């Protein structure tokens, strides 16, 4: 078995084992689950580091051909895994961060009734995530794509006893269906367009030039619709805030580091396609910019600590899409890399707070919390997300800003700029309300199993930026060179880059100071009025409810009542009843009375005689 196959199958095997133990031995000890869960994710985490190491230093491309799925003529679909630079890079942060979140979750979910089920889903989720990342063709990628959707549905609605959680899971699943519809349609179009060979990415990109430009555009757009759904962009973002209903490790895993980044990864994977369709790239940029701005605006008026983080995730994903649309693929991926660390850290810290304060999530109730360790980590993560030098996101975000600046679309750049100011605002608002307050709330510190992964992530969020040290500071952009993606972005002149960084940092600090004045040691957060457009999330949920959900519900009710129940059910019931009655009538013939049997036989004999006589009448 090759490295990739083990890496892929380890979480699946442990998920299955946990499922089996959970079903067969309902009273199994908790450490058994812990052992298998950490084994599965740990093995793949280590192997991911190994793969990353060889890919980075030896430029090795790992390929693992498992089996041929379909072979029709000269067209074949292989179940093959491939870790090229992009794939290894994704693995490099997805697998270790998943492992850390597993460790964290053992602390967070400690003594939970559904401990086993949780880790079974968790491992199953990372299996599908690896499948998505390692897929060598879009079909396998789609399987992983659907798989993460399914398991995220299960994890969001994990505490299914509260119906609201189930609704949130449904919402995530259904909204993602719309995106998946786009993905699937794009795959069908690709299937029609590909002249021969296979469905592998390399073959698709080889044949791109021969395809119809209009259908290429359509394919690119439909793929992006898929990405919109998975990565929570306008207009398919409404599921992400509601998805916070799941346990916090779920948010840390799914809504920070892995699943929501799938859309970004997919667009980067199809970079050659998007390079040929500049108009779609522009759409991507605008959608990303609008999503980032909208999410950041909404985040400034949210009170639920996890929802703030959810909107912030959406906003950061918007940044990544802006960069993708501008053709700065490796920059977008680098931001995704740093984002995985600091956002996972933020979610974990939020989870630690939530656990420490008995599942309170409203920042107004959590004012003045006393958790020094958590405070340090959260401060690091917040400074990272608002892009203070030299924290990692400073490099990644400023690379994006530079790329947008060079790309020449002023509107997008301005939106990005405003968004990064708003990011600073809502993050510092949250921090100041939580930790800088006159009131004091004591609580127990989190267990080591939760603190340890957070510390590692804190270190990573500080230093990860140096991996792609910009040239202006004498770095050489290791990661961008390693990835070798077909970036379109023109390099920004060094003077302008420095100026941008300076301006950006200055304004961010200004915003933070303002937020400090407004929220630290004041009661503003409580007294502040909370209505209007922004506080109500621009009424987008209400709009969807009114103009999409309600009409569909009316149509569904119609079909359910009249077509399904009245027409189809009645038809089936009546035909079944008819057969029943017919059977009763026919059964009278078989009543055990031998005389009647003789009569039937006589009928047969007479019929046979008459028939023979009639058909042989000419011969006689």
């Amino acid at each position, binding site marked *: 078995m090759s490295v990739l196959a083990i890496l892929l199958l380890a979480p699946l095997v442990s998920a299955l084992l946990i499922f089996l133990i959970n079903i067969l031995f309902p009273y199994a000890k908790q450490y058994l689950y812990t052992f298998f869960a950490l084994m599965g994710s740990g093995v793949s985490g280590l192997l991911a580091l190994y793969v990353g190491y060889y890919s980075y230093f030896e430029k090795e491309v790992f390929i693992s051909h498992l089996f041929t799925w379909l072979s029709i003529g000269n067209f074949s679909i292989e179940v093959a895994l491939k870790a090229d630079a992009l794939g290894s890079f994704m693995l490099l942060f997805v697998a270790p961060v998943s492992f850390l979140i597993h460790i964290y979750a053992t602390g967070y979910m400690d003594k939970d009734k559904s401990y086993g089920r949780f880790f079974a889903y968790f491992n199953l989720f990372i299996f599908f995530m690896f499948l998505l990342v390692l897929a060598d063709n879009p079909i396998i990628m789609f399987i992983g794509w659907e798989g993460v959707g399914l398991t995220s549905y299960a994890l969001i609605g994990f505490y299914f006893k509260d119906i609201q959680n189930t609704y949130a899971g449904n919402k995530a699943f259904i909204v993602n269906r719309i995106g998946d519809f786009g993905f699937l349609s794009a795959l069908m179009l690709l299937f029609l367009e590909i002249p021969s060979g296979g469905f592998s990415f390399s073959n698709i990109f080889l044949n791109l030039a021969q395809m119809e430009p209009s259908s290429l555009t359509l394919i690119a757009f439909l793929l992006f619709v898929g990405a919109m759904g998975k990565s929570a962009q306008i207009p398919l973002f409404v599921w992400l805030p509601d998805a916070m209903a799941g346990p916090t490790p779920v948010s840390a895993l799914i809504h920070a580091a892995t699943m929501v980044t799938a859309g970004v990864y997919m667009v980067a994977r199809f970079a050659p396609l998007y390079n040929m369709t500049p108009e779609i790239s522009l759409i991507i940029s605008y959608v990303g910019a609008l999503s980032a701005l909208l999410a950041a605006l909404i985040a400034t008026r949210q009170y639920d600590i996890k929802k703030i983080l959810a909107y912030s995730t959406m906003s950061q994903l918007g940044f990544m899409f802006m960069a993708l649309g501008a053709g700065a693929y490796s920059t977008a991926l680098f931001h995704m890399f740093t984002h995985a660390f600091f956002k996972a850290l933020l979610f974990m810290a939020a989870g630690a707070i939530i656990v420490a304060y008995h599942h309170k999530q409203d920042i107004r109730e959590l004012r003045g919390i006393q958790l020094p360790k958590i405070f340090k980590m959260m401060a690091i993560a917040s400074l990272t997300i608002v892009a203070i030098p030299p924290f990692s996101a400073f490099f990644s975000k400023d690379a994006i800003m530079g790329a947008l600046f060079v790309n020449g679309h002023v509107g997008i750049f301005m939106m990005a700029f405003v968004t990064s100011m708003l990011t600073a605002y809502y993050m510092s608002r949250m921090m100041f309300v939580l930790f800088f307050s006159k009131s004091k709330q004591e609580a127990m510190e989190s267990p080591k199993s939760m603190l340890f992964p957070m510390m590692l992530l804190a270190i990573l969020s500080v230093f990860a930026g140096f991996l792609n040290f910009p040239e202006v500071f004498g770095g050489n952009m290791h990661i961008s060179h390693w990835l070798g993606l077909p970036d379109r972005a023109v390099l920004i002149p060094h003077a302008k880059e420095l100026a941008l960084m300076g301006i950006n940092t200055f304004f961010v600090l200004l915003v933070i100071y303002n937020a400090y004045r407004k929220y630290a040691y004041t009661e503003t957060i409580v007294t502040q009025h909370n209505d209007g457009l922004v506080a109500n999330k621009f009424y987008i949920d209400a709009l969807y409810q009114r103009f999409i959900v309600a009409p569909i519900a009316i149509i569904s009710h119609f079909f359910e009542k009249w077509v399904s129940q009245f027409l189809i059910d009645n038809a089936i019931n009546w035909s079944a009843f008819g057969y029943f009655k017919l059977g009763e009538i026919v059964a009278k013939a*078989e*009543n*055990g*009375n*031998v*005389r009647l049997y*003789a*009569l039937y036989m*006589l009928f047969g004999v007479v019929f046979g005689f008459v028939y023979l006589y009639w058909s042989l009448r000419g011969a006689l």
Partner: protein
Amino acid sequence: MLKAYMILSILLFSIGIVGLISRRNIIVIYMSIELLLNAVNLSLIAISADLAESSAQVMSLIIIAIAASEAALFMSLFVVLFRNRASLDANLFNILGGKK
């Protein structure tokens, strides 16, 4: 002359079938069966006489022997059935149709 015998045999056979199917009295049913056998015997003997061949006579002799053994069984059946049901109605003996 053979044709007349054959026609008589056919008529007797048909009467036997009618009795076999339309009557409910098991004794009459039994006698109808015997009538069928006799009709066949009659045609066999007629053919044997016409062909001057005695094989058919042996055949009908064997048929008569079979009819005798059948008679023995039927008689004991009548006794058993009548003892159990106190009736000669063939419609009562319908357990072939399964449980009702």
